[in-house]
């Protein structure tokens, strides 16, 4: 397995899309955090933004999109070029191949996302000054690390969708819809069942981990993140089952 992991690391580091999408994720994370920090400092209480930690981490959904795009490309790029057949000739155990891909990608994405989260947090708090939060305040460290986890999870979601759909544009559309567009559209669903769907829908649940304090009517930070991970796990299992069954 060590060899397969090293092989996947060589693959990941040797294409440009990795560098560009990860740089984009860092830029979005820090950039949005700074932007919102400046806005809320200048507007003061009028902005209605009270969670100083969450303000500085507000780029996490955009960073998630960038990392999830990389997740899609990590596998759909192999299908697009036909490289997947070469990969499977080298590693015929398909689950072994998928596990190594997910592991190497997850570790890389988490390292970058975590660094970006801390950078965004400190930059944002520096702008907010007196109104800012400290890492030692209750729930703050969890939220900052949580942003890194959320972005990484979204990346794995992208990879799972890429493995399932095997087609770059299709998987990018599905990924964007599931982690960005549809979660917002669930706000339009009526009644109590609509509220339930909204609460449990992908990033609506996952985003809770970036909040310092739980919000009424929403899932708690870890419960919400757990629900998001369940969505990803189901997708990943479906992808694994089909990967084993389908002709390459």
């Amino acid at each position, binding site marked *: 397995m060590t*060899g*397969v992991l*090293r*092989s*996947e690391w*060589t*693959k990941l580091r*040797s*294409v*440009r*899309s990795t560098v560009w999408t990860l740089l984009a994720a860092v830029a979005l994370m820090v950039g949005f955090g700074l932007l919102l920090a400046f806005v809320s400092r200048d507007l003061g209480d009028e902005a209605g933004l009270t969670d100083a930690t969450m303000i500085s981490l507000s780029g996490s959904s955009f960073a998630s999109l960038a990392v999830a795009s990389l997740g899609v490309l990590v596998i759909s*790029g*192999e299908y697009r*070029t*036909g*490289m997947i*057949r*070469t990969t*499977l*000739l*080298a*590693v*015929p*155990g398909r689950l072994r191949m998928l596990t190594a891909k997910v592991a190497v990608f997850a570790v890389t994405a988490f390292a970058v996302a975590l660094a970006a989260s801390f950078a965004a947090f400190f930059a944002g708090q520096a702008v907010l000054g007196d109104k800012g939060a400290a890492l030692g305040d209750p729930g703050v460290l969890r939220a900052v690390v949580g942003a890194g986890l959320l972005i990484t999870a979204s990346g794995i979601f992208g990879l799972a969708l890429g493995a399932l759909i095997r087609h770059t544009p299709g998987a990018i559309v599905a990924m964007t819809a599931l982690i960005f567009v549809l979660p917002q559209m669930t706000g339009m669903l009526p009644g109590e069942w609509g509220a339930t769907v909204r609460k449990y829908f992908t990033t609506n649940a996952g985003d809770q981990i970036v909040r310092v304090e739980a919000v009424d009517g929403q899932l708690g930070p870890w419960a919400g993140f757990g629900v998001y991970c369940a969505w990803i796990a189901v997708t990943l299992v479906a992808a694994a089952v089909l990967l084993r*069954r389908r*002709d*390459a």
Partner: protein
Amino acid sequence: MIDVKSLTKRYGSTVAVDGLSFEVRPGQVTGFLGPNGAGKSTTMRMILGLDRPSEGTALIDGTPYGALRHPLRKVGALLDAKAVHGGRSARDHLLCLAQSNGIPASRVAEVLALTGLTAVARRRVGGFSLGMSQRLGIAAALLGDPEVLLFDEPVNGLDPEGILWIRTLMRDLAAEGRAVFVSSHLMSEMAQTADHLVVIGRGRLIADTSVDEFIGRSSQAYVRVGGPRLPELARVLGGAGTVNGAGTRVEVTPHGDHLRVTGMSAAAVGEAAAGAGLALHELTPVAPSLEAAYMELTQDSAEYTGVRA
């Protein structure tokens, strides 16, 4: 050695490969021939564990490909030279394959040198010409120094120099004792490379034989006979325009100056003539080209036959 038994692949109601059985032995080049769409690539993908057979098995030295621990050290394959990630350098492409199979990184430099790619090792493979991509694919196939090699249409689209290079390489690999399995729809190509032939049409086995036997067995192999007393000779041989019990057929050529004897060796014709006291002016065994033998065998099985205008 590759051992294929009753291999079958169905896509819905279409049968792409139909109960195929054959062996690919070490120390020789085995040509895998058939018209386009005959099921060659599907068969190769099943041998390599990429496609799942509907029935039957394909084993490499008794083991299914998927169960090989370090498959690249046992089997090298070139399926599609362009099936590489264009953004990666040739070196990184080979390095990731080597790492996955516990092959030392030093071997990457070796196969790059062997295929003449050392100078472009750090260039992105997306910019490679077809000939260079083909060399990279062969470098990947040779990476693990495998005993078994599979090449799917390796000369397609190559210039004469590239074709010659691949042909020599395949001969050399077989001479080193490896089992080399090469598919092609070009008979003439196989005539110059292969020792043994596996011919398929519409997914079925048509012939599994040595190249020499393949030509010899074709009904178009005949003996051209010339002499002063042809009508009598024809009678001795069983009568012009007839087919006797032994399967011998004697025909008079359009100009009437020769006989064309099918199903009888030149020696037998000579003996028969001598026995009857008839002089012969010409006795020539005519072997059809491999191309003709192949066309004859596969004409019924071609998936798409053009309509003659």
